[in-house]
């Protein structure tokens, strides 16, 4: 068993682009679910909107990347409005069902053969990240971070941008969640009727929360598409959203650092289990499994982890149990 390999892969994953992507997606969910109590099960749709906005703008229409970023942000706002208007006046589970349906709609549309010329069908879109990597200040080469991890120059660039985004967004949220605005959100999470009776426009605040969380989700989409220079519809499935929830709950909902810690630990564990099992199978330490079953085991662990977390530690690593939205309604 090559423990150095297993650990280095796991640590790399814990700070790698996957962690950044899930962290941003989970920060968006934190605004919606953690602070406001909105059950957005369609975060994958917002991520897909971000990814496909830049991909389509550049690869299909040949327009500049930064126009694509602008379009992505605008479309994320529009999607949030579209989903919010019919559901935010209804009970929480309606939003859950409508957003999960919307995420499937987005995925099925961008992978449709009929729209292949625009979105590239199931193969998705490639070759749109040139501008982004053209700005890369890291000279070509491998960057080793002692003791045993390392990234190439492209990964270094995407990670730099990604983690700066994470820190910037977290700082903004830190400020705004301590303000009276954040107080209204937390109060809505508790009991909307009480907030209404105090003269606050609950619908408007929920909508703001949905929009802000969605826009942060589209940031995750930008990083997702740029980090692999490709946008593929089937990556934005319902499972993506569920994993982002796992990340959020693992770290602690309604905590600024929750999604960051959650994403790092989630990906460290995922890759640790995967590489560890693969190593064990390849080195014949384990012989009752085959490599193809490792993926299934990983996801079973996620499912089991989600169940156990919610039963035994719903506040996650950082959360305060007294302040968690899970037992509402």
């Amino acid at each position: 068993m090559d423990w150095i390999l297993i650990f280095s892969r796991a640590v790399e994953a814990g700070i790698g682009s996957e962690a950044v992507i899930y962290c941003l997606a989970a920060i968006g969910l934190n605004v919606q679910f953690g602070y406001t109590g909105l059950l957005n099960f369609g975060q994958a749709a917002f991520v897909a909107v971000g990814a496909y906005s830049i991909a389509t703008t550049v690869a299909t229409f040949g327009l500049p990347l930064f126009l694509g970023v602008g379009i992505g942000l605008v479309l994320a706002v529009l999607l949030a409005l579209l989903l919010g208007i019919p559901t935010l006046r209804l009970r929480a589970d309606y939003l859950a069902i409508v957003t999960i349906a919307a995420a499937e709609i987005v995925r099925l549309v961008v992978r449709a053969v009929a729209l292949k010329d625009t979105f590239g069908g199931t193969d998705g879109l490639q070759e749109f990240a040139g501008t982004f990597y053209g700005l890369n200040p890291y000279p070509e080469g491998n960057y080793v971070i002692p003791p045993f991890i390392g990234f190439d120059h492209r990964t270094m660039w995407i990670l730099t941008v990604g983690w700066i985004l994470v820190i910037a967004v977290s700082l903004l949220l830190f400020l705004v969640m301590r303000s009276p605005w954040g107080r209204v959100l937390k109060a809505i999470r508790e009991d909307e009727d009480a907030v209404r009776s105090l003269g606050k426009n609950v619908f408007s605040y929920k909508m703001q929360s949905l929009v802000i969380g969605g826009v942060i989700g589209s940031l995750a989409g930008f990083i997702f598409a740029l980090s692999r220079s490709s946008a593929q519809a089937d990556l934005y499935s319902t499972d993506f959203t569920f994993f982002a929830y796992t990340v959020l709950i693992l770290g602690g909902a309604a905590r600024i650092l929750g999604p960051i810690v959650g994403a790092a630990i989630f990906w460290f564990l995922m890759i640790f289990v995967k590489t560890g099992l693969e190593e064990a199978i390849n080195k014949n330490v384990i012989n009752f499994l085959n490599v193809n079953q490792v993926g299934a085991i990983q996801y079973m662990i996620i499912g089991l982890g989600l169940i156990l977390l919610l039963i035994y530690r719903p506040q996650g690593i950082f959360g305060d149990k007294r302040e968690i939205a899970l037992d509402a309604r």
Partner: protein
Amino acid sequence: MRRAVIAFTAFLGGLIFLLASGSATAWAEGESVKGTLKSQGQPVNGVKISVADESDKPVGDATSNAQGTWEVSVPSAGTYKVTLDQSTLPAGLALRFKDRATLTVQVFEGNARNVLFALDAAGGQQQGNTPDGDPAPTENETYWARVAQLAFEGLSLGLVIALGAVGLSLIFGTTGLTNFAHGELLAIGAFIAFFLNSVVGLHLLIAAPLAVVLSAAFGYGQDRFFWGQLRKRKTGLISMMIISIGVALFLRYLLLFIFGGASEAYRQYGAQEGIQIGPISATPKSLIIMGIEILVLIAVGVALLFTRLGKATRAVADNPALAASSGINVDRVIRIVWTAGAGIAGLAGIFLGLSQTINYQMGLQVLLLMFAGVTLGGLGTAFGALVGSLVVGLFIQVSTLWIPPEIKNVGALAVLIIVLLFRPQGILGRRERIG
């Protein structure tokens, strides 16, 4: 490291469900073209497909198997011409577009490229019509025949959804739980039957009832040892909803772990010749399945309306506190609802496996449609779930008249959102139930 990430992502992508195509992709090394031939949801086997490169040099050929799938490996990425040999199509089937027997496709590096050939019942073969030059009135007739055929298929799909949705709705009504793992109850029913049928070797007529009983037992156990305990701990509803997501993930990938990612079929009642009833062509098994589905749904309805237990169930759904104070054993009612709901869901899963294929993602694929049906009909009302599911099934199939079949589910889900805009309580729901 980058390679590892890419490989991992590809792996992730491979696991992700393919709701539109309805078949799981087996992991393939190297480039290939592949596809699944289906007509009215039934696999079509024995059809020859040949692949040539850009300069018409043959690369290989394949014949579709009992599941309707075929695959031809190609040497490298590039452009290929894929040709379906129309003379090998079974009697009564024809290409929807006669001029598209040869398709030109692009295969990317490392990509197993899916190629779709649309098949239809050959129109008016009894009258010996020529494929082209149909006179205008006949075209109109075939149009309506298609509408009738699609409506029939929609009804068939709607009944399966309804069977699953009734349990989902009753569990929601009595416990308030939006169970994201309900789809997996269908999948587990289908796989238990598959196990008894293919591994143990029982005839499906014996395996299926056994699987339903085992599904019901699983439902009982789930409530007894899991959900019931959580209720006792006074776990919040949102918490339980997210726990059910964990349960769904766990069960789904447990199925993948045990049975692998390939699509399976039962040993009996595979491909059947369709019989013609008026404008509709249907396989005998689909008619029998629909008959059983209707009987089960009627039985559930009658039980809810007229038996003591049914009345108790509706009372609990209406107001658990009031029901408890009027002497109803709420926990017992919920346990029975779970048991029956899981049993019926298992039955629905077996039927779904019979009319389509059995794979570990079938639960997730049908879950959203059940949600759509339940929400459309009105959350928490069993009869609403029934009506909503039929609407969803019909809408999905009939909408393929106007939209490509691969995005037919988009229409159903969009309708769900639009209905909620104008009638948030659903078709049969009451206004007080919302908010």
